[in-house]
């Protein structure tokens, strides 16, 4: 893959951070700019850090811990793991985001701590979300994170790059989530394994930052290592003579609202094919679709209406900031009047820790990123992944509903 003289965005970042000529398929050791761990991964990372002989982290100002996966804690074991995180963070001078402040990826997008061209590791698989900022960000496990906290470095296999070009104008009932679900349906859940995934094309310039974060977030679900959103404002982009392993062109003008059906994210069908299927619960939130724009879309569909009888509609703003903005805009009132129940910002419902675990045989429409068997905490539940518009329309009707079929649909 090293025939071209140009470099991909990933090769550029890894060359700069390793001080070498990083080319795909080679191994480099590179300096990291920022590290993140959550309450699922930080406790094991702290143990590994100590076992490595670690005393001080390489640079406390470049590390964040976030209590979000089980927040607030559902039991005493987890409450004690949170104490362990707080105590380590205080001793080292690491920034710790408390339970309820928000979901790690949303907090880091909001934090201002990340800059374009940075190399970031997060002990969470959706760390690739920061590709929306032009950051090369990859998910790792606890032990890799511990080694990076100690040394400020990590080893990287320089990824090959998949270039995805988005063309055309998205229909107004469809959203960035529908684009990325359609793409995962086409590529498969291992279609981009170990690849750096670059998004290009004119469509990007019509999308909001929130939309770009949704797309970057779901790169994990096609197996990608990291993502770069190369819109017209991006400066970390591949050279014109860089070598791409694969180029995929997507015409978004044909993309309808989509669903990922149980139990795999690449089991994707148009919403219209399942329209009318009875549902029990709707979840709006997560690092994928819990931003202000997502809540706004749901509010626009549900304003002055009420969700169908018997439907549980849980809404989880991705951060306190999102919560406050939604409060200011009146979105929270609109959603509450429509029957929404608000959950504290966090990952619990998506990852099945707590707050809204479905019952046996129940059908959930969720704006999250995974629908694996047992994902929401019950292996007998059926999870359909969808956009915020499809989720809100389905909550309203009590059955899977294409938002484009609602009367006066102008939602998105």
């Amino acid at each position, binding site marked *: 893959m090293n025939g071209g003289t140009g470099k991909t965005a990933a090769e550029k970042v890894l060359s700069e951070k390793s001080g070498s000529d990083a080319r795909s398929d080679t191994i480099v050791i590179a300096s990291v700019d920022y590290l993140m761990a959550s309450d699922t991964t930080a406790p094991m990372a702290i143990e590994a850090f100590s076992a490595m002989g670690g005393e001080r982290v390489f640079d406390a100002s470049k590390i964040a811990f976030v209590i979000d996966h089980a927040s607030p804690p559902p039991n005493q074991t987890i409450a004690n793991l949170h104490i362990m995180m707080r105590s380590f963070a205080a001793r080292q001078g690491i920034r710790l985001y408390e339970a309820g402040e928000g979901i790690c990826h949303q907090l880091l997008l909001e934090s201002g701590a990340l800059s374009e061209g940075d190399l970031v590791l997060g002990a969470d698989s959706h760390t690739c979300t920061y590709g929306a900022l032009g950051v090369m960000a990859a998910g790792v496990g606890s*032990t890799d994170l511990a080694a990076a906290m100690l040394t400020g470095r990590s*080893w990287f296999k320089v990824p090959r790059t998949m270039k995805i070009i988005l063309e055309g104008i998205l229909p107004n009932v469809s959203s960035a989530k529908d684009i990325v679900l359609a793409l995962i349906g086409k590529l498969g859940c291992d279609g981009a394994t170990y690849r750096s995934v670059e998004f290009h094309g004119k469509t990007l310039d019509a999308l909001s930052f929130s939309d770009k974060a949704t797309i970057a977030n779901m790169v994990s679900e096609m197996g990608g290592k990291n993502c770069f959103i190369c819109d017209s404002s991006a400066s970390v982009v591949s050279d014109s003579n860089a070598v791409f392993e694969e180029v995929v062109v997507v015409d978004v003008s044909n993309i309808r609202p989509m669903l990922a059906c149980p139990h795999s994210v690449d089991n994707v069908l148009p919403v219209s094919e399942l329209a009318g299927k009875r549902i029990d619960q709707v979840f709006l939130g997560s690092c994928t679709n819990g931003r202000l724009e997502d809540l706004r879309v749901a509010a626009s569909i549900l304003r002055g209406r009420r969700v169908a009888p018997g439907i549980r509609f849980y809404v989880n703003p991705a951060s306190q900031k999102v919560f406050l903005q939604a409060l200011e805009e009146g979105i929270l009132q609109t959603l509450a009047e429509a029957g929404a129940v608000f959950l504290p910002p966090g990952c619990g419902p998506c990852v099945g820790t707590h707050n809204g675990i479905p019952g046996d045989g129940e059908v959930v429409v969720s704006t999250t990123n995974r629908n694996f068997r047992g994902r929401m905490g019950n292996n007998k539940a059926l999870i359909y992944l969808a956009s915020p518009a499809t989720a809100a329309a389905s909550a309203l009707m009590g059955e899977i509903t294409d938002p484009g079929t609602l009367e006066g649909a102008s939602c998105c």
Partner: protein
Amino acid sequence: MLLTGKVLKYGDNINTDVIIPGKYTKTLDLNILTTHVMEDLDPFFRRKLRPGDFVVAGRNFGCGSSREQAPVALKHAGVSCIAAISFARIFYRNAVNIGLPLIECDTSLIDEGDILEYSLGGSQLRNITRNSILTLIPLPQIMIEILKEGGLVPFIRSRKGYTVQS
């Protein structure tokens, strides 16, 4: 190190949520992880598994979450090695980092119950039951070195950092 064990075989896209559900991951107690390992995929996994056994699967083993609890639970339950056609990238790193060997090869020729033999770092997998040899896609050198140290913790502890360029 020579690894020998019987095969427990599964399919494609075995994700980390079925290896260890998210609701059980918030713990440092390895016995809790071991108790629930693979239960959503195969409730009899623990009963079938003997120490040293190989888990063999199809494509994209370990996709999904970055939870290191997944390879930890498999290793602590007694799995000595995982062979698959391909692995998801975070699981791949995590397994090596905790000292659980992985093999990438064409697993379609391996069946449930076969006895396999693998010398750590070697380029071949021997199927004793079928008297056949499978060629492996080799691990990067740094991963072989991490595995030979027993994982990334002993690797970093003994070398005081990343001292290997490969």
